[in-house]
């Protein structure tokens, strides 16, 4: 008797939860699906062959990848330190790392300009080696990196934490150096978390609008000028309206979907092993 009642309670909860979940799914899927299918395959193909569109898509993908690679080089060591070492101010540092996620991204762009602008500290420093950040690829990359690197750090940190610290200690007692232990024990065991963090970072980087807009509009790219896809979509919408922006929006959503479904598949396949 009591078993049945508890099962029924559980069931009514399932029903309510399922309804709520369905509402959310419709909310997420309806705009995406409608946008993707609003343009015929022919229109999408023509859109992709539009020179400003494909150079924009290419710029977005490459700049996002570059930001992610730099993020891996500097972010994974930080994540390892956060996962393994105890030090004063660690909690504060962890909160600080997530700041780029919570601040408005136009504010992030302004903050970056305030440091990487031609008259400011880092801007002057990089200026000496000929790197400037306004309307350049470097500007796109730092804007993307700033807003997306927390995803990589957080995910990598969790991945390192999940690695049994005794494995590392065993490696050390067997004579492995700290470097060997990191590269041959910790990193291989944590790679999946780092990989999915990288995918998240790349995705977030490619979708960045506000911070990029402030630093870099049209940048030199492949002998011409290009802007990132989110800005191109907004630009078409502002200058020409919904009909002109829609095919570009559909294409960008479609490309993002294909890339990230493929990458998640790789990460999940690793999961089963």
């Amino acid at each position, binding site marked *: 008797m009591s078993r049945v009642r508890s099962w029924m309670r559980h069931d009514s909860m399932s029903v309510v939860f399922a309804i709520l979940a369905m509402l959310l799914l419709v909310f997420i899927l309806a705009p995406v699906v409608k946008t993707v299918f609003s343009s015929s395959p022919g229109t999408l193909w023509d859109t992709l062959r539009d020179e*400003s569109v494909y150079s924009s898509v290419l710029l977005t993908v490459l700049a996002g990848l570059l930001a992610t690679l730099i993020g891996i080089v500097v972010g994974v060591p930080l994540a390892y330190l956060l996962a393994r070492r105890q030090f004063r101010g660690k909690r504060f540092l962890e909160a600080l790392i997530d700041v780029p996620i919570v601040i408005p991204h136009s504010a992030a762009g*302004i903050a970056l*300009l*305030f440091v990487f*602008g*031609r*008259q*400011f500290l880092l*801007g002057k420093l990089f200026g000496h080696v000929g790197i*400037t*950040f*306004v*309307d350049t690829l470097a500007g796109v990359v730092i804007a993307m990196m700033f807003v997306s690197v927390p995803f990589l750090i957080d995910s990598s940190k969790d991945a390192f934490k999940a690695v049994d610290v005794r494995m590392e200690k065993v490696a050390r007692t067997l004579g492995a150096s700290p470097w060997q232990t990191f590269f041959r024990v910790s990193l291989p065991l944590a790679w999946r978390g780092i990989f999915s963090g990288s995918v998240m970072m790349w995705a977030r980087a490619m979708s960045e609008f506000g911070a990029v807009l*402030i630093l870099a*509009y*049209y940048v*030199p790219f492949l002998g*011409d*000028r*290009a*802007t990132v896809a989110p800005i191109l979509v907004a*630009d*078409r919408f*502002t*200058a*020409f*309206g919904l*009909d*002109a922006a829609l095919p570009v929006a559909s294409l960008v959503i479609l490309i993002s979907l294909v890339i990230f479904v493929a990458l998640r598949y790789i990460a999940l396949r690793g999961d089963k092993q």
Partner: protein
Amino acid sequence: MVVADQSLLPMLMYGNKVPDSTDEYANWYIRFATNRLGLAYTSQSKYAAEIGSANWYEVLSRPDVKVGISDPRIDSCGYRAFMACQLAEDYYSDNTILERVMGDFSPPITVSDNLGSHVIAVPETVKPKKVIMRGYSVQLLGLLESGDLDYSFEYESVAKQHGLGFVELPAEIDLSSRDFADRYGQVTVKMDFQRFASIDPEFRGEPIQYALTIPTNAPHTNAALQFVEFLLGADGQRVFLESYQPTLDLPEADNPANMPARLQSLLEQ
């Protein structure tokens, strides 16, 4: 609806019907203020000490000077910057100024000359190779302040409101004076949109005149009327002058007969 270029209202609102109605979006407007186009700069701008209304285009042509413009497709300050450079060519008898100041664009922005008048054709994408562009001119101010821009084409009121330096251009160029209306009219900026827009807007050079109207489908017409009365009245005019925005001595109406009666009596005073 308040715009920085009076020609926009008849172009986009007259004759265009509100959906499911026989009304046009507007059938009258009032010109009420003007402005002056020039260059905003800061004390850190390169050659700030030597730039003036006689050598500005020389300074802007230097390779180490970063010049900002706003998008000529969507911002009046943007297409007016092109007008000013073209007018400068006539004024200084130097037909390289536009190209030297603005540099190349991809695809190119072309100028065709016909019996002393000039038509500047802006394609549907504007990708500058020399100048730094943002959608609207006010978006360039931050870059000026961060030192990443040396000069940007800007209205006098905006530059002064932000405490920036302002290089005045000769009145023959700066689109401020009715005395030079004929001269300004020699230059037209034409939007050459191949694919997207049903109309290709065309802007003929003329003295800058800000204009306002109340759309026929405005949800709060009475509040709008009150606002217009305030704006054209003594208090509103004082706000404009305190903000460095020159007003017209006498606001003028286009199609005054279509205006609400309250505004007709206001303009007659």
